[in-house]
C-alpha cells in the first residue's frame, strides 16, 4: 500500500514538474485542445438540436398561403372560408398587410433603408395553416390545391423550410466535424511536440532511470499523464465555452422575433450533459494519443 501511495505521489510530482516547466507551451496546447473539442461539442449539440427541431415539426408542420397584395376582399374571404371548412385543416391564422409590415420591420431593424422601399400596400396578406395531419404528401397536395385559387400569390410549405434547414444543419455539421478533426490533429501534434521537449529537458533523469532499471512504462507514465492533463484541461475549457455559446445562442433565439423560427432548435439537459462529457473525453483522448506517441517514439531503451 505504501508502495502504491509512493508511486502515486511520485507520478503526481513528476507530472506537475513537467507542466510547470513548459507553462507557455502548456497554455498553447490547452487552448488548441479547447477550441478543437469545443467545436466537437457544438457539432454534437447542433446535431441534437436539429434532430429535436425536425422531430417537433413532424407533429406541427404548417404552411403559409400568400395572397396578392391587392387581393379583393371577397377573394381573401373565399380562401379563408374554404380553409376553415376544409376537413384536413385544423386551424388557420390570418396575417394582415399591417401585421406583415410589422414582422418585416422587426426583421429589417438594422436595415431601415431597405424597409423604406417597402410600403404596407406592397406586402402580401397571408393565411398560416396548420393541417390536422402533419404529413408531407398531404401538405404538398393542399398547397397545390390552394396555389390555383384566385387571389393567391404563392404557397410556402413548412416542408421546404424543413428541408432547407435540414440541409443547412447537415452542412454545418460536416464543416464543424472537419474543423474539429483538423484542430484535434493539430492539438495532438502540439502535445506530441510538447512531450518531446519535456523528455529532452529531462533526458539526464531518463538516462539515470534507465540505468537503475526503471521500466519503460514507469518512465513514460508521467509524460502520458501530462499529455492527458493538458487534454483534460482543454476539454473542460472547451466544454465550458460550448456551454456558454449554447446559452447565448438559445437566448438569442428566444429574444429575437426574426430568429423565432429557430426556437425549436434546443438541446435537452441530458443531451447537453452527453455532449459535455463527450467534449471533455475527446480532450483527454487527444492528449493521451499525442503524449503516448511521443513517449513511445522518443524513449529509446
Amino acid at each position, binding site marked *: 500500500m505504501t508502495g502504491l501511495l509512493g508511486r502515486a505521489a*511520485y507520478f503526481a510530482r513528476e507530472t506537475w514538474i513537467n507542466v510547470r516547466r513548459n507553462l507557455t507551451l502548456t497554455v498553447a496546447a490547452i487552448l488548441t485542445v479547447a477550441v478543437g473539442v469545443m467545436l466537437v461539442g457544438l457539432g454534437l449539440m447542433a446535431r441534437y438540436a436539429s434532430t429535436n427541431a425536425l422531430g417537433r415539426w413532424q407533429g406541427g408542420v404548417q404552411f403559409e398561403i400568400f395572397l396578392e397584395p391587392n387581393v379583393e376582399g371577397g377573394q381573401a374571404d373565399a380562401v379563408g372560408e374554404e380553409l376553415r371548412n376544409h376537413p384536413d385543416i385544423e386551424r388557420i391564422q390570418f396575417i394582415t398587410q399591417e401585421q406583415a409590415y410589422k414582422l418585416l420591420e422587426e426583421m429589417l431593424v438594422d436595415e431601415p433603408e431597405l424597409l423604406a422601399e417597402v410600403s404596407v400596400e406592397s406586402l402580401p396578406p397571408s393565411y398560416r395553416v396548420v393541417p390536422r395531419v402533419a404529413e408531407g404528401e398531404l401538405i404538398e397536395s393542399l398547397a397545390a390545391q390552394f396555389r390555383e385559387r384566385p387571389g393567391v400569390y404563392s404557397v410556402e410549405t413548412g416542408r421546404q423550410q424543413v428541408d432547407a434547414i435540414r440541409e443547412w444543419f447537415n452542412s454545418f455539421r460536416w464543416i464543424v466535424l472537419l474543423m474539429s478533426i483538423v484542430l484535434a490533429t493539430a492539438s495532438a501534434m502540439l502535445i506530441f511536440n510538447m512531450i518531446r521537449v519535456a523528455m529532452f529537458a529531462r533526458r539526464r533523469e531518463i538516462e539515470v*532511470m534507465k540505468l*537503475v*532499471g526503471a*521500466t519503460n512504462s514507469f518512465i513514460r507514465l508521467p509524460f502520458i499523464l501530462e499529455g492527458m492533463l493538458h487534454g483534460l484541461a482543454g476539454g473542460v475549457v472547451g466544454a465550458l465555452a460550448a456551454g456558454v455559446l449554447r446559452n447565448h445562442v438559445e437566448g438569442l433565439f428566444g429574444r429575437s422575433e426574426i430568429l423565432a423560427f429557430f426556437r425549436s432548435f434546443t438541446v435537452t439537459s441530458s443531451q447537453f450533459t452527453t455532449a459535455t462529457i463527450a467534449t471533455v473525453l475527446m480532450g483527454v483522448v487527444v492528449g493521451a494519443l499525442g503524449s503516448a506517441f511521443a513517449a513511445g517514439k522518443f524513449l529509446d531503451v
Partner: protein
Amino acid sequence: MIRLDNVTKIYKGDTRAIDGVSLNIDKGEFVFLVGESGSGKSTMLRLLTAEEPVTDGEVHVAGKDLGQINSWRVPYLRRNIGSVFQDFKLLPQKTVYENVAFALEVIGRPRNIVATQVPAILELVGLSHKQQSFPDELSGGEQQRVSIARAFVNRPLILLADEPTGNLDPNTAQEIMRLLDRINRTGTTVVMATHDQTIVDQMRRRVVALRSGQVVRDEQQGVYG
C-alpha cells in the same frame, strides 16, 4: 556471474569494437578492464547492461542470456547491476539524498524502504552530513561517492564502473578505490574499466587487458602492463 562466449560487436561502418571475446567472471570477483582508448572497454560494459546488442556470440549476466531476454525484462536485469561513470551522472537539481532515493523510487520501492536504505548507504560512503547538499556544492570525490551510493543502494549483484577515478586527483581516487573494495568485500562482483596504472598496480586484482576489441592478457593479481 558474467560469461561472454565468443562475443563480437560490430558498429555501423564495420568498426569491430569487440572481436571474439570469451571471458568468465565469478561471483565476488574484482576485475580491472585495461587498455587504450578505443580498445573496447566501454563497449564491453554496455554489452553487460544490454545497452547494446551483441553482433555475434552470447553474453550471460546474473544467469540470464542477454540475447534471449525480452526487451521488457531488461530493466529488471539492470536492477541487479549498479553502474558508476567518470562523469558521475548526478541530477543537479536534486540533493544528495534525493539523488540516491531516486534510484529506489523509480523502481517502485516503498517509501519506508527508501527512508531506511538511503541514510544507511550514505553512512557507508561517508556522506551522512551532506544529505541536503546539491551536487555542485560537493567535491569531485564526494560526487563520485554519491554516484556509488546510488549504484549500490539497491544492493546489486554486480557493480560496473567506467573510469570512476578518471576525473579525480590521486588521493581522492584512492578513497574511491577503498570504497569499491569495501563493496566488493560484501560479495558484489565489481568490474572496473580504467586507465589508472597506479591503482591497478596497487590493488593487485584480476586484470583483463583489451587491444582492438580482443583480450590480450588475463591475469589473476595482475598489474597494468
